[in-house]
């Protein structure tokens, strides 16, 4: 049981670092995000409510800084192209092959995702939070977490497998969802 939240912040640093590197894809930018997140957290440490999760609070701070940076500088890629390409391609069916993506592939793929999808990949796939925990961090419904995350992962998969076109697999399960 720790009484000093600053010690909890130190314990949280490795997770924050992974999260930041996943988002920025870059050692220097990742460190900058870690540092800025810690600075902001420490300057507002009295706003953190004891008894609530410090990691969720820190992730929220990091997320806000990251999304602000993206808006201000477009620090990573242009998120629009892939997203639109995905919409055009449609989700109804495609051939899926046994191709485990490499970390490098997914890292490059993350760069072109929209910011809100990047954050979810970093929270769930990288940090290992459950969908429910991610929903609490972001203060959004769990259904939104799941649909956004599934969308992000389809996009990552397509990014790493550009040769895979729409294909014969017809998915009954997606009919009726196509015009959301």
């Amino acid at each position, binding site marked *: 049981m720790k009484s000093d939240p600053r010690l909890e912040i130190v314990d949280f640093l490795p997770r924050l670092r992974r999260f930041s590197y996943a988002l920025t894809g870059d050692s220097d930018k990742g460190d900058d995000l870690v540092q800025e997140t810690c600075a902001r957290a420490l300057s507002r440490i009295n706003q953190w409510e004891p008894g609530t999760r410090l990691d969720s609070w820190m992730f929220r701070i990091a997320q806000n800084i990251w999304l602000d940076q993206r808006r201000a500088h477009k620090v990573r890629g242009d998120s629009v192209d892939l997203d639109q390409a995905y919409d055009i391609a449609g*989700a109804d069916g495609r051939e*899926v*092959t046994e191709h485990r993506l490499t970390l490098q*592939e997914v890292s490059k793929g993350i760069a072109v995702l929209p910011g809100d999808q990047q954050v979810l990949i970093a929270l769930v796939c990288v940090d290992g939070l*459950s*969908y429910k925990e991610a929903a609490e961090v972001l203060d959004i419904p769990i259904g939104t977490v799941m649909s956004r995350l599934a969308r992000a992962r389809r996009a990552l998969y397509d990014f790493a497998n550009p040769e895979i076109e729409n294909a014969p697999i017809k998915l*009954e399960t997606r009919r009726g969802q196509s015009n959301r």
Partner: protein
Amino acid sequence: MAKVTDEMLMAYADGALSPLARAKVEAFLQAHPEVRGRIEIFRATGAPFRGYTGGQWRSRFQRISKTSF
């Protein structure tokens, strides 16, 4: 048969379903084996991160974090 969404397939691949929901998905996959391959999308995009430590990046923070707090 109940519909199975991409979100459920993702949760299935992530091992995040309750036993009941898991059984539903498995029953659906038995009846629709062509959907099975789709799970690969979610396996392929979850697996690379397992055990990922961010260690391939050299962090200046690693050096200073011991002393700055």
